[in-house]
């Protein structure tokens, strides 16, 4: 089975590439959803809410399959499997990013806004120096968690024919007739690429855990 190492390598690269695209665009779309949710216009708020609730409810595999088979029928658009997967994972990640960002913003206690205001921190100064850093600190660990989930969800793209890690694993299984070994190697490779992200979340939790984020604890 090791003679197919190049195939594993290619599958791994496609998995990482797919993850990177979904993370970048999913985060961007998620931030737009938050901006719309906080907008003055009720229509934008309603649309944002509807999108978030709808796409949180649709399972990622169902979303990928629906996009893959329905886009050509409904809109006459036939995208390659990789692009469908990137689109589907982006649409799937965005509402979770939006929820993570929104709850991070909402969890900054009112007293932090007030104590910024009574010193004269207003507008961008308040957000940049006082509130923003607290939002980011609350945001990062759950956000990285969502990115890990997205990385793992890329394996669903195998179902629509993207030659990512899980797909090439099936191919190598067929070629070698070694189902146990190939599946174990695939699992090991997923652990290998997720491990640095997990280490990142532990580091973030340790780093910001010390500061306690205002949940004042007596020494």
């Amino acid at each position, binding site marked *: 089975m090791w003679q197919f190492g190049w195939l594993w390598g290619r599958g791994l690269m496609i998995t990482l590439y797919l993850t990177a695209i979904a993370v970048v665009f999913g985060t961007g779309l998620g931030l737009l959803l938050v901006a719309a949710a906080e907008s003055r216009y009720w229509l934008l708020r309603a649309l944002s809410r509807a999108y978030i609730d709808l796409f949180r409810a649709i399972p990622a595999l169902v979303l990928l399959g629906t996009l893959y088979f329905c886009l050509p029928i409904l809109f006459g658009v036939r995208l390659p499997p990789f692009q469908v997967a990137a689109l589907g994972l982006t649409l799937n990640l965005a509402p979770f990013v939006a929820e993570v960002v929104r709850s991070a913003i909402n969890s900054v206690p009112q007293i*932090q806004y007030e*104590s910024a205001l*009574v010193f004269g*921190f207003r507008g961008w100064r308040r957000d940049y120096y006082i509130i923003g850093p*607290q939002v980011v600190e609350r945001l990062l660990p759950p956000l990285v968690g969502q990115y890990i989930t997205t990385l793992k969800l890329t394996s669903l793209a195998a179902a629509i024919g993207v030659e990512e890690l899980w797909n090439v694993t099936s191919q190598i299984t067929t070629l070698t007739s070694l189902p146990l070994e190939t599946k174990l190697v695939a699992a090991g490779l997923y652990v290998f690429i997720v491990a640095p992200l997990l280490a990142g979340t532990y580091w973030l939790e340790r780093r910001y855990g010390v*500061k*306690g984020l*205002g949940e004042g604890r007596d020494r």
Partner: protein
Amino acid sequence: MTPLVLRRVTKQWPNGKFGLRDVSLEAMPSTLTAIIGHSGAGKTTLAKTVAGLIDVDSGELQREPGQPVMVFQEDSLWPHMTLLKNVSCPLHILKKASRAEAEHRAIALLEEWGLGSELQNYPAQLSGGQRQRGALARAWLMEPKILVLDEITSGLDPENTAAILKSILALKSTETILLMVTHQLNFARAIADQVIFMADGGRVIEKGTAKEVLEHPKDPRVARFIAAFDFSGSQQCE
């Protein structure tokens, strides 16, 4: 300097309850006004109104231009900054002192207040008393025209309370108008130039010098409140 003046200030909450009702008050520079009264009487609402955090519905509020500063009952240090950054940052960012100058002044004050060894610690690593003294130091360095203190010693041990009260005493010698919501009646009795008693959902029911209000209260509710305080105080001493 302009004194702080409130004339018939009223604030009603959306649920119909009054935060402040017809509150009038005047305070001069270099004086301390103690605000006392029952929980829910509107003391914090008055404090936040003077600090500019609450817009009033009617009445008049005059104060010296410039940012009034407030220290809160709850933890209000910024949790992502070290103690030193907390205290020096407003001075550096808002008062445009150089970073070195701001830190130098912050360190000098924190060392004087016995917090010299905590400079690089984050608020979560400090005790309640240290956090509250840090918050007071941060306010003090801004040299505000008006400084509002909202029950800043509640929940602290006697030693920390004494340290904070000592700092407030030192503040009185500056030009600052001090407004202090407090349950420390003995401190108010000794130091306050003016005492205000609030009750009845946002009303000031008695106002005068510390002697007038705390020793010869006219309103029976004030008399009961002070008697209860003296009783619980004497119990603690036995």
